């Protein structure tokens, strides 16, 4: 792959650590004392197969006669919504504006175990206890779609989404036409490093193979995550990789592992290891590193020259939902720019509503002191609002069919599970 011209400094905009910001997700993390556990929200970025859209009638058939019930049961990841003490301002505002009361639970730790929990219930047509849930584009979301576990969305009731969602967030490859999902937040998988131990600038995926960092490199345990990085380093676009490319990529990863360069294949516990110095260079999610930098840790994040990957966490409605209309109302509600802004200012990943950037700038102008700095950092960060040139270097994940998924796992799983 060619390396497009770009402003490298822009991508590494998070150079100066700040003393301490006011954003509450960080406080929550600190209070929890275990950022590893708290940062579990970032999800693994894998993408599953796409499915044929349901028949037109399916939408009408499902939604006809459905009514708003005034309650919504929402399952989300930890620290993935704005929080003030024990209260959720956005949810309270939603209740005020729509009359729908929300039961909010941080029930999802990762996609595989969540899918494992709900799969038997949905297969048996039982209520899973939630009307709305957030899943990353990936194998498990793909399985949920293929198995008919998700409700096809009635877009006539999603006008705010249609009006305000960024073009990148509409009609994604993993769910053409947003038939089953609309995005909650997105994030970038790139490379983070700790300049306390690394005295050069990390710019390439190839740096993860540098023997200088033997035993100090962290990779992700998710097979699609590592496969994508290996493919990109070989100059192959993951979206168009063939089985032969997969084998070459797996060999390259095996080589890295056998040379003792990889310290560990991490789930979402890499941040602590990176801060403590157990690993010096590590695959990382943008929001995690943004949080750490905003909290005062001296870490750098880079979208590698060979390319990085972008993933999206999506809202979807399980087929056994009791309050689907309420869920749909909420899905549309979070696309109101002021609501999206409140969420973005707390969550620090990539919001699906581009208009939030200006609104955050406006909020910054109205704030003072640390708040102002913090919001300015947020609005100016290429990790939250990537420039077009950066987006061009970000790849989405290959959509795998059932059989190719098995082949893929058989090729890449031995790397992490030796």
């Amino acid at each position, binding site marked *: 792959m060619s390396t497009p011209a770009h402003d490298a400094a822009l991508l590494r905009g998070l150079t100066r650590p700040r003393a301490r910001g006011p954003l509450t997700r960080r406080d929550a993390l600190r209070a929890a004392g*275990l950022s*590893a*556990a708290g940062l579990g929200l970032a999800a693994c970025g894998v993408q599953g197969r796409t499915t044929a859209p349901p028949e037109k009638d399916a939408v009408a058939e499902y939604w006809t006669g459905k009514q708003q019930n005034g309650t919504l049961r929402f399952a989300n990841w930890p620290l993935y919504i704005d929080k003030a003490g024990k209260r959720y301002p956005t949810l309270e505002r939603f209740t005020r504006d729509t009359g729908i009361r929300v039961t909010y639970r941080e029930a999802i730790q990762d996609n*595989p*175990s969540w*899918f*494992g929990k709900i*799969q038997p219930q949905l297969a048996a047509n039982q209520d899973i206890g939630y009307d709305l849930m957030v899943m990353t584009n990936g194998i498990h979301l793909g*399985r949920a779609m*293929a*198995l008919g576990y998700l409700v096809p969305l009635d877009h006539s009731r999603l006008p705010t989404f249609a009006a305000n969602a960024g073009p990148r967030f509409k009609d994604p490859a993993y769910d053409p036409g947003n038939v089953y999902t609309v995005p909650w937040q997105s994030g970038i998988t790139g490379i983070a490093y700790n300049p306390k131990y690394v005295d050069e600038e990390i710019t390439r995926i190839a740096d993860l193979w540098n023997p200088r960092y*033997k*035993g100090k490199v962290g990779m992700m345990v998710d097979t699609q995550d590592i496969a994508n990085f290996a493919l990109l380093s070989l100059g192959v676009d993951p979206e168009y990789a063939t089985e032969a490319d997969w084998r070459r990529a797996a060999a390259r990863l095996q080589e890295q*592992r056998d040379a003792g360069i*990889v*310290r*560990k*294949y991490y*789930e979402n*516990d890499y941040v*602590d*290891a990176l801060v*403590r*110095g*157990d690993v010096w260079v590590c695959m990382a999610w943008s929001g995690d590193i943004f949080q750490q930098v905003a909290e005062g840790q001296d870490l750098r994040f880079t979208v590698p020259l060979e390319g990085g990957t972008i993933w999206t966490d999506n809202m979807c409605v399980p087929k056994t939902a009791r309050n689907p209309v309420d869920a749909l109302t909420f899905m549309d509600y979070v696309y109101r720019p002021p609501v999206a802004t409140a969420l973005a200012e707390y969550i620090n990943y990539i919001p699906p509503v581009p208009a939030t950037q200006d609104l955050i700038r406006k909020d910054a102008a109205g704030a003072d002191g640390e708040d102002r700095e913090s919001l300015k950092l947020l609005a100016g960060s290429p990790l939250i609002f990537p420039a077009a040139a950066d987006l061009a270097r970000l790849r989405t994940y290959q959509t795998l069919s*059932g059989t190719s998924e*098995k082949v893929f*796992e058989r090729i890449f*799983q031995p790397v*992490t*599970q*030796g």
Partner: protein
Amino acid sequence: MRRRITPYLLVLPGGLWLLAFLVVPLVFMASVSTQQGDVVTGFTQAFRLANYTDALVAYRTQFLRSAGYGLAGTGLALLLGYPVAYWIAFRGGAHKSTYLLLVLLPFFVSFVLRTVAWRFLLADDGILLRPLKDAGLLPEGFHVLQTAAAVIGGLTYNYLPFMILPIYVALERIDPRVVEAARDLYATGRAAFTRVVLPLSLPGVFAGVLMTCVPMTSDYVNASILGGPANTMIGNIIQTQYLVNNDYPAGAALSFILMAAMLAGIFAYARALGTENVLRVVAR
């Protein structure tokens, strides 16, 4: 008549419990373990015994590694736990129950949290290794986390009370007069221990070894928190098969292989070291 029924009535709740939550799932899993297909297209019963051989061939390294870690951890727990149990039983005095509580105290904190705490203690630049490296006692690149030592250490730490408690119970039951009698018969302290105390405590050791070795071998938390790429245990593989791949047949087959291997191990162990036999051998 009633008297004859009573014992059966007493065993009924426990029996039903085991039937519903052990036997039924086991039968169900056994059936799953020979099925074919995937989660999307559905699984069908194909009586595919190759699931077992496939699993065994693909993951023999992890099976052997788990056995090795389990045995090493058990041995370590025995070495550490026996003296502790001995000390509490014979030297604990009036505060025995306090010491026992102290042994159990870590259980009041979540298993996962205790293991995660190790990650902090053993960090490359952490409070333990940094001073040693600064003093030149350890090379700069030295690390404990993501090594077999860290995983075995974590296993030992987490299951140590299961070794201490049964040994303590066995030792506690020994009549002190038996030891006095040995001494009166001119046994040295060492002889009194090896000829009297140790044989009498062997049932406790037997139980302790079973209670630690089995869960250690099938553990996956320690390997995933403290281990690295070369420390994957069979528990981690089973977890991946079930939760990540949703390959339930492979996971079930692996579980049954593990169960069979451990049962075989336990029977061999019980036969070789069956407490009665051991008593007879040692007493001679």
